[in-house]
């Protein structure tokens, strides 16, 4: 703002200069005109009077000098005329004739003397009178003397004019000088004004640009804050860090327990072992839920849709959860509908599992029903329970992470509260519309609108790791295990050696290669941990080993990572990926599957 005021000062100066220049131009013009016109009238007068005197004298002489009498009258008329002309030029004199001369004493004197001269000889100026030559001489000489006085007056006028001319000239010079100086100042002032204005506007533009930048930064920050991305990212980082540390020992624990089974003989011991196993299972599930959330947020989850039979899926869910339902004295009813949908098998099953599991957790008595019906080109799946119900105010909140109704004591058997938030993300991912209708004391109904599918005969099972789908025939297999954690290696050894596998343990890539060379041995399967010592990754390890033995040995990666970037990297490596903690069965199935693949 200050600069704008500053800019106005040279601006005003420029205006002032312009005004002065205008004034000077007018003055110069005036002076030039004065110069031109100066003294014109006076000069006219002087010239004319001088001329008239001379003419008179001349005419008189002509008359005197001519000899022939006949010519005399003409010549006489002539000098009379000249006399009249002189008379007119003297006796009609006014200020208008004389101009500046009227103030001169010598001029006034001349006029009065001329008048006297004319008057004294007037009687002689008629055609009747014949003037004698000596009179004529007298007149002539008087005329001449008056004429010379006119001449000196003219001279004086000329000198005056020169002085005036010089004065005017100087004045003109001064005016021109002033004009150029003011002109230069004007240009300077204008330049200054423009410069200041430009810098001001540029400054303003800069400030404006800055302001806009700041504003957009603020908007972005605000958006981030309100969208919850920051919390989610913090959450992911936390989960990645925490769950990785948790997975290692859990993984080892699972392996140890699996190994322990064959060493326990007593029934009580087996029961205790079973309970221990259940607990670790629960722990696994919890960790897996957290991993799922992380995966979903990382966008690593692929959706492969196919035509699915709801009856088949419902049946599987029924089988999975019936034991739980029985334990809680609840009825689990699954209704056949004959409906087919088009969606991702595993993810849809996951959604339904979570909903059913949730229903079981929060229903004290009664029935959980899973049914389906056709609506337009969708199928509506309904999971209903006769539980405590959810008040309308909580209908949105229940989908938030870690949010649980009616679990003030944080009963861990009821899960972490992640189940529904996973459901929310999965349904969004699968483009399934999820709605809930529930009132306290009236039970809860979850409804899913899934795109309808076509009935397909003989659906082949997709190749996935399924418990119990392969016989556990690992006998004779050579397995290379690369993991930098001692406990994990130990646990793997304990488990795998039970199945008569030859197990080679390595704690790093170098160690693995060294042992291979030493033993001159090629493994049948490579199991590598993703995160190895010195920032090395499992897929690098597998590549190195494959190079070493010059063979594309089947391999899998086990990772304890939950961070989205690491997950993306691991999945991108292309190797079969298992997540810690790995259930013993899962690991064994994977090994068998890999070993069975043609190399």
């Amino acid at each position, binding site marked *: 703002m200050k600069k704008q005021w500053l800019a106005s000062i040279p601006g005003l100066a420029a205006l002032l200069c312009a005004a002065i220049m205008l004034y000077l131009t007018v003055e110069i013009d005036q002076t030039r005109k004065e110069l031109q016109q100066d003294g*014109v009238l006076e000069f006219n007068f002087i010239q004319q009077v001088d001329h008239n005197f001379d003419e008179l004298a001349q005419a008189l002489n002509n008359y005197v000098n001519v000899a022939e009498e006949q010519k005399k009258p003409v010549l006489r008329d002539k000098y009379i005329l000249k006399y*009249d002309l002189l008379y007119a030029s003297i006796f009609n004199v006014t200020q208008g*004739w004389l101009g500046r001369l009227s103030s001169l004493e010598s001029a006034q004197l001349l006029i009065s003397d001329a008048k006297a001269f004319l008057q004294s000889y007037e009687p002689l100026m008629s055609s009747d009178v014949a003037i004698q030559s000596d009179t004529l001489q007298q007149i002539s000489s008087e005329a001449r003397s008056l004429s010379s006085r006119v001449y000196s007056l003219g001279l004086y006028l000329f000198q005056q004019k020169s002085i005036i001319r010089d004065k005017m000239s100087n004045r003109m010079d001064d005016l021109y000088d002033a004009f150029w100086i003011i002109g230069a100042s004007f240009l300077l002032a204008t330049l200054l004004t423009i410069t200041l204005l430009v810098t001001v506007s540029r400054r303003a533009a800069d400030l404006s640009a800055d302001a806009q930048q700041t504003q957009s930064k603020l908007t972005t920050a605000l958006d981030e804050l309100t969208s919850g991305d920051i919390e989610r990212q913090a959450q992911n980082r936390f989960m990645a860090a925490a769950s990785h540390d948790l997975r290692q020992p859990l993984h080892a624990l699972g392996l140890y327990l699996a190994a322990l089974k064959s060493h326990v003989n007593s029934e009580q011991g087996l029961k205790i072992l079973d309970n221990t196993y259940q607990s670790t299972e629960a722990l696994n599930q919890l960790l897996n839920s957290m991993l799922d959330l992380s995966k979903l947020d990382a966008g690593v989850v692929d959706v492969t849709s196919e035509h699915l039979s709801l009856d088949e899926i419902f049946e599987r869910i029924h089988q999975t959860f019936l034991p739980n339902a029985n334990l809680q004295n609840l009825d689990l009813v699954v209704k056949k509908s004959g409906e087919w949908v088009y969606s991702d098998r595993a993810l849809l099953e996951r959604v339904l599992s979570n909903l059913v599991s949730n229903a079981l957790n929060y229903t004290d008595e009664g029935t959980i029903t899973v049914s389906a019906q056709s609506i337009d080109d969708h199928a509506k799946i309904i999971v209903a329970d006769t539980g405590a119900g959810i008040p309308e105010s909580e209908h949105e909140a229940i989908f938030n992470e870690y949010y649980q109704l009616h679990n003030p004591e944080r009963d861990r058997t009821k899960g972490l509260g992640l189940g529904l938030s996973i459901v929310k993300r999965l349904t969004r991912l699968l483009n399934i519309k999820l709605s809930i209708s529930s009132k306290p004391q009236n039970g809860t109904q979850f409804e899913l609108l899934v795109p309808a599918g076509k009935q397909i005969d003989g659906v082949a099972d997709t190749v996935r790791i399924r418990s119990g789908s392969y016989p556990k025939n690992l006998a004779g297999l050579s397995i290379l295990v690369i993991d930098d954690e001692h406990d994990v290696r130990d646990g793997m050894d304990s488990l795998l050696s039970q199945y008569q596998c030859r197990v080679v343990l390595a704690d790093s890539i170098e160690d693995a290669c060294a042992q291979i060379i030493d033993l001159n041995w090629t493994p049948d399967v490579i199991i590598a941990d993703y995160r190895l010592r010195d920032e090395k990754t499992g897929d690098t390890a597998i590549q190195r080993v494959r190079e070493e033995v010059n063979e594309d040995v089947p391999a899998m990666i086990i990772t304890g990572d939950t961070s989205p970037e690491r997950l993306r990297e691991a999945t991108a490596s292309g190797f079969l990926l298992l997540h810690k903690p790995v259930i013993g069965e899962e690991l064994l199935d994977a090994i068998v599957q890999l070993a069975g693949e043609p190399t």
Partner: protein
Amino acid sequence: MTNTNVNNEAHITRAMLESLPSVEFDTTTPWADGIQNFVGVRISDLFDFIGASSQSYVAEGLDDYKFTITDIDVERYPIIIAYLHNGSPMSVRKLGPLRIMFPFDDYPELLTPKNQSSAVWQLIKLELL
């Protein structure tokens, strides 16, 4: 000039002038005191009379005074060659018999040094350019 009577000159007599339409006005002049009355012929009328095609001329007086007149609008202004001053003909001593006169009072803008110089008295000749 188309209407000539002597060689390629038009010699105008007083009678000829008086036969043309006359214009009269009162005005003050720089050369005398008081308001004076002038009667004369408009220069534009005279030019029409003689069929003059030019608007520029040199005016000459009996006293050999000459002045070149180039851009005085004789059509617009009633500038006259006066032959009567205050009702009477002018003698040479009275700056006659003919003088060019401007209606200075009616048209104050005419009072310029240049016009003053072109108000030739004792008019004897107009030389068309």
